[in-house]
């Protein structure tokens, strides 16, 4: 994320624009600093220095480092969620929707390794409110999968925790790849993720066919 500093001196820009610009600059600085140091080792001083703003300006926009991180986290995750929704809406059938949504998520994370780390690894390290927000965000994936329950034609109902378990497996593998600096290769996981995720709902043959599309 490139930082965009305002020119020094009297620039004559409206106060709302300056405030918005400063806020975005601080968020950009947080993303860069967390990518370099990790969330726990990042300080407000690191962020203000990278953003070229005063501590007073920082606290005009955010209550603390956690609030700043949450603003960045929500900006990124809302972008991903919107892209996943848009991709899914291109299809009528649930399995295709899941495939499109997962492909979109992997594509974004693969193209933005720093943001991938920010939204998949740092929240676990941060814990607290950030960790809770992350778990709530992952619940979005759970809901996408739950919509496939009517597709299930098995002899027994699917276990209640099927979706949480599947999402746990998906996230576990993605986190592993990101933490091993292999975020750029995340899209290669798509066929295996699709097959394992869809098989409980639509059976292995159809899941395999969709995975290889």
């Amino acid at each position, binding site marked *: 994320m490139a930082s965009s500093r305002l020119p020094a001196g009297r620039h004559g820009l409206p106060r709302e624009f300056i405030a918005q610009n400063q806020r975005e600059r601080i968020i950009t600085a947080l993303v860069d600093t967390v990518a370099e140091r*990790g969330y*726990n080792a990042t300080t407000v001083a690191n962020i203000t220095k990278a953003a070229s703003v005063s501590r007073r300006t920082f606290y005009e926009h955010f209550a603390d480092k956690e609030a700043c991180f949450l603003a960045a986290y929500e900006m990124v995750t809302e972008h991903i969620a919107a892209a996943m929704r848009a991709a899914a809406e291109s299809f009528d059938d649930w399995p295709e929707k899941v495939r499109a949504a997962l492909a979109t998520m992997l594509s974004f994370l693969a193209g933005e390794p720093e943001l991938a780390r920010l939204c998949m*690894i*740092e*929240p*676990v*390290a*941060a*814990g607290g409110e950030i*960790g809770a927000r992350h778990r709530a965000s992952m619940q979005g994936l759970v809901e996408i999968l739950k919509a496939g329950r009517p597709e299930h034609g*098995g*002899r*027994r109902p699917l*276990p*209640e*925790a*099927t979706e*949480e*378990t*599947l999402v*746990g*497996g*998906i*996230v*576990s*593998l993605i*986190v*592993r790849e990101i*933490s091993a600096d292999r975020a750029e290769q995340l899209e290669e*996981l798509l066929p*295996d*993720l699709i*097959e*394992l995720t869809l*098989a*409980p709902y639509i*059976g*292995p*043959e159809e*899941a*395999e066919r969709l995975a*290889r599309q």
Partner: protein
Amino acid sequence: MSPRGTGSDPYEEAVEGLCDHVKAAFDGPRSWHDRVWAGGLAAMRYLREDPARARLLVAEASRGDLDSMRRRDEAVQLLADLLDGARDEHEGPRPLSRCTAEIAAGAVFSTVLAKVASGSVERGEDFLPELVYMATMPYLGARAAEDELAVQPLR
């Protein structure tokens, strides 16, 4: 692959103990399917016999720093090794990959952590059929694995 600790770190000892229990139960001349059940039961018993140790495992695995993630990954890889042993027995339309075992292992591991974190480990055997279903589903097929859901594990 078993995480080997120095003997002085309670977390290393807990992970090592869990892995050793699961691996000992899993090893043997029985079918792969039966060994998955044996390994699962051993894990549940190990976690239940010392709740503080179980909570330590969850807290450390959830810490999120590089060292914690490396150690968590070692445990997932051990589980994936055990599951991956059934790859050759799989008779599906295409060969399975190592990735399949890693997703299934990650799914099982994250679910166990969530159950421990929520205090549900006391009823570990109750959710074991769901874990076995998830672990065996890629290898046995989704329909066949459903039979696991009807199993009542011995306590």
